[in-house]
């Protein structure tokens, strides 16, 4: 199902649940997942004097999304980010690596304005978009502004038919979520 997350629940233990809280509000405390998805991921973000590394929070948020699981479950998955630097864990490394790869590739594509060498089994098509806006002043003068002009790289992988689109004009380097499924869904 498209709307289901990839981190399908496989282990539904009903016994001890260390982080579990009761669901009902008001009255009882709210469930931790409900709170965390809000206070970490939502709400207005303003830079304070104490600089929280936003990457920290982002990594944390991504991990919480991937996990949103108990410590035990996380350990089963080989993730122990609460014990050590998040960037040292295997999962984070994987995501980072994937991120870096994508970024490198974007950089390369940007540098070489011409046709980049596609990887084996991949086909690269360029799609150009060009937006123009015509504004007419009160005194009748017309002003043309090109607000956006970019080319998009569409990589068509032969194997799974997956389609990745990365606008080379913006820095959408993937938020580290790194799931191919999501990228596939985001085209268009």
């Amino acid at each position: 199902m498209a709307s289901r997350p990839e981190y399908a629940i496989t282990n539904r233990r009903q016994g001890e649940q260390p982080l579990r809280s009761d669901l009902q509000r008001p009255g009882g405390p709210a469930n931790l997942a409900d709170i965390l998805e809000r206070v970490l991921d939502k709400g207005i973000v303003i830079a304070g004097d104490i600089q929280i590394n936003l990457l920290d929070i982002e990594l944390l948020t991504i991990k919480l999304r991937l996990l949103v699981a108990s410590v035990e479950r996380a350990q089963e998955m080989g993730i122990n980010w609460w014990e050590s630097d998040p960037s040292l864990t295997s999962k984070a490394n994987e995501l980072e690596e994937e991120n870096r790869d994508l970024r490198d590739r974007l950089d390369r594509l940007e540098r070489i304005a011409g046709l980049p060498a596609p990887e084996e089994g991949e086909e690269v098509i360029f799609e150009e978009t060009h937006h123009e806006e015509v504004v007419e002043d009160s005194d009748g003068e017309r002003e043309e502004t090109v607000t956006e002009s970019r080319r998009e790289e569409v990589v068509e992988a032969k194997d799974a038919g997956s389609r990745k689109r990365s606008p080379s004009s913006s820095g959408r380097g993937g938020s580290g979520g790194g799931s191919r499924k999501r990228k596939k869904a985001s085209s268009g």
Partner: protein
Amino acid sequence: MAERESTEALRQALDAFGQEFAEGVVADARREALERATSILADEMTRSLLDNARAHLPASPPARAKTKRSRPSDGPQELAHYVYGVAWAGEDAVPADTAGVDPDHAPFAVEHEGLVAIASLVPLEEFGEEELHENLNDVAWLEQTARAHETVLDAALASATVVPLRLCTIYRGEEQVREMLEHEAPVFEDALARLQGKTEWGVKLIAQPGALERASSPKENAAQSGELSAGAAYMRGKSRQAEARDEIDRLAEQWADRVHGRMAAHAAEALLNPLQNAEVSGHVGDMLLNGVYLVDDADEDPFRSEVDALSGEFAPLGAAVELTGPWPPYNFVKGSIEAAR
């Protein structure tokens, strides 16, 4: 001669004594060593049991916070301003009798030109840059702080429209909080105007294990497979399984759409959030929908009635519709600041 004999006899007697008692002595020593070891082990076990038992006790935040911090009692603490959210001045947004993220410091208002920041003091030794980096990765600390943040905003919500800020927005002093209010005033004013009289609610649809399977169309005549060859039967079984899975996915989506569509009809704005993992949320079964809705307070009754109606429709199917809230409008402010920038 006789003397030598008696010496020999004495030695023999001593030997015999030694032999006779050596065993006993070793046994005694062993017993005593065992006892000592047992008692040491018992102490260690007691300590371990106590530690573990403590972890299972309901969390009492202040006590837990104290042990976490190990504050030096000498010397003044360096304090910073932690800001929870922003409201219109004069709406009495600062809750009384609510602890801040640091239990020792209650929330207060920082007012500036018609806006108030709901703030409280926090020690830099816990909320400083390096410390935050570590603490944010400490699940227990994170839970405690997130809950405290939410509790303050919850309380504020009772009497005011609040724009919630993300966890751990911290300023050096009151002056810096005022500057922030000054700079961001247009964003806050826009958001507050838009959110006035509206409340965030969450609605989830959770199917009991097996509910979707039961509700999807029943399997066709299994008898037919008897006539097929083993290979063909196997292939047919495989494709049936795949069909059944597709059918279940379709049904899950259908159910989620039905609930979301009808809730959204009573809301000013509606959004879908990623489904939660059962182990943190504590639900049993499959979460099919995690929707959030910004509802005009005037529409709260019809909104709630719709939740009840949907509950009634889904209960026989083995699925539950869960309502949470009221929440500070976390899910409906992000866009506003992005739009403003």
